């Protein structure tokens, strides 16, 4: 009886473990970085072909010393709300350890607080980037790899300055042709077998006729 209670208790504990996650909340971050990206609003880019240039720097209107904990800047490609709709695998969550808005890393660079010049990077859009609407966001990380600041190319509502990327289809003419050939072969084989069966059946009944007569 006691062991049954232990099992039940550990069950419950396991169920609750998930809620005890650590993780920085996005709402606690300050927007401290100015980020610009080369795509204009509404521009359509092609994966594998086009490039995106991103530039980022600390916002110089902010009080100094705010970037004292910044050690790394990671720039990421993020899904706009229209591409997140009805797609739970891209869902936005306030807890950044569970947030799935920004799944593609563009670049990661170390941050030097003494050097206030803006940094930039040119990125060729990878062939595995899916078709969607995007914006660019940069996160600042401290030495424990926890987010301490951010910046993005769009506004807080994520409605301005969005651009689209068309992913590769992955289709090939050779695949198309092979599909057709194999399918045709499949159907034709069926009819060949049908014909053979009918002939066997006729032969059997004709032998019967011979035997009876």
């Amino acid at each position, binding site marked *: 009886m006691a062991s049954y209670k232990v099992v039940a208790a550990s*069950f419950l504990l*396991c*169920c*609750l*473990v*998930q*809620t005890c996650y650590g993780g920085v909340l996005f709402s606690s971050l300050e927007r401290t970085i100015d980020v610009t990206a080369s795509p204009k609003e509404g521009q359509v880019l092609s994966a594998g072909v086009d490039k995106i240039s991103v530039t980022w720097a600390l916002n110089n209107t902010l009080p100094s010393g705010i970037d004292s904990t910044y050690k790394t800047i990671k720039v990421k490609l993020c899904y706009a709300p229209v591409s997140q*709709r*009805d*797609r*739970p*695998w891209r869902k936005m969550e306030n807890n950044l350890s569970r947030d799935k808005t920004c799944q593609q890393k563009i670049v990661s660079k170390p941050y030097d607080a003494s050097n206030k010049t803006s940094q930039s990077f040119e990125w060729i859009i990878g*062939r*595995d980037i*899916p*078709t*969607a609407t995007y914006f660019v966001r940069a996160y600042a990380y401290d030495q424990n790899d926890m987010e301490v600041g951010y910046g993005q190319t769009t506004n807080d509502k994520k409605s301005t300055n969005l651009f689209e990327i068309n*992913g*590769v*289809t*992955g*289709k*090939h003419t050779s*695949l*198309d042709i*092979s*599909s*057709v050939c*194999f*399918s045709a*072969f*499949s*159907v034709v*084989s*069926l009819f060949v*077998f*049908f014909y053979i*069966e*009918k002939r*066997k*059946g*006729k*032969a*059997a*009944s004709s*032998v*019967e006729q*011979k*035997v009876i007569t």
Partner: protein
Amino acid sequence: MKTEAIVREKASMEVEQPPAAGGGGGFNNGNQSSEEQKFSVPVDSENKATEFRLFSISKPHMRAFHLSWISFFSCFVSSFAAPPLLPIIRDNLNLTATDIGNAGVASVSGAVFARVAMGTACDLVGPRLASASLIFLTAPAVYFTSVINSATSYLLVRFFTGFSLATFVSTQFWMSSMFSPPVVGRANGFAGGWGNLGGGATQLIMPLVFSLIRDIGAAQFTAWRIAFFVPAFFQMLTAFSILIFGQDMPDGNFQRLKKSGEKPKDEFSKVLFHGVSNYRGWILALTYGYCFGVELTIDNIIAEYFYDRFNLKLHTAGIIAASFGLANLFSRPGGGMLSDAVSRRFGMRGRLWALWLCQTFAGVLCIILGLVGSLSVSVVVMIIFSVFVQAACGMTFGIVPFVSRRSLGVISGMTGGGGNVGAVVTQLIFFKGSRFSKERGITLMGVMIIICTLPICLIYFPQWGGMFFGPSSKKVTEEDYYLGEWNSKEQEKGSHHASMKFADNSVSERGRRLNTSTRPADESTPSPTHV
């Protein structure tokens, strides 16, 4: 029930009775139509095997078994080849959760009618031709999966590929034609279970094939397309094997048996009528919807569930999802064997009770699965759940062969089709779009399992009883039940002989306790002595 392997020869144009056991030689009727039937396994009066030897490929019984489970396995692999690759496909095709849900529904809805049609086709042209035709005709849908480029085309290929799941019916029909009542549960369980294995194996195979192709150098969005040629080709291969190596019945193939008159031609409308008018077929269709239908639903959603909820890699999610379907290796056959074992002691009533208990417990486990939040507990619960839900499937098909003899195909088709209806309904209610989270949907599905298993209490066989009532006091026999499907004109023509043989072979369903007391004296010999 075991008879010696008997040498049997064909006499003339009618279904004839076998000679007494140990009978001697006869005369040859012409080399193509005479049957010197020697079987390497013991058989009953219908030449159905009374022993199930898993690792033999003897012709025709065990060979039919291996052909049918492998072809069914390949159809399962094809039908569920997309779900483990969905994290890639959904990005390539820009799918929404609604698109994915709709396609999941489509993948199992095609087979609803295909299964019923398949049942009738088996009754009319035989399982060999029926299943091979379906496999050849659905292979193109799998090939064309590699050229799709939109949510609509994704839905269409999954819809047409799903038709191939109707081979389940031909598998069960074939097993019921080749194996005798005491072992039919086991045969159906192994064939169905090892076929259903495909739903689990595909969750392992497809991510593996995909990563292999991608590592060779193909882009991600091309690699998954190439990967689909593997299940398509395998499926085609199995169809060839069935036609070349298979045989419909122990005595030969339908076409030849029909033309030479050994298998009397039956009327489609009568076969259909006797199938759909048997209420037990409908109840089993509903309950099968909540063991097999649930299995299909889980095959569709489980990989994505683990990938998204626990943040696993595609590969890992695939392995975990696979373990659900892989349990079929032993759990569904185990269900069949348990059903046979219970029937030896308690007869058909035992089979009904076993099914109800097993499936209800599966429902409870499903409720728990949706509630647990830790990965390891989730996996453990899922595996236990899979064992029980699949055993319930096996037990269902320990009962199906006895519902009707004349319309075995239609009943098998209805039950099989009902399985798919369950999958369709469940996915529509709980797993379409973003209304319920997946874990909530799983819990609610568990509740529905429990509710929809209750109708088993209503199944009643007058000659054997039901869950709560014993056999009818009017002393109805198996013959009365099965011959009730033929009217007097048909009986005059002698069309009912096969049903009679089956009725005699099925007295084992009375169970041991009642066997010695109520069994009339003249039925104590295994083979019928009357015409």
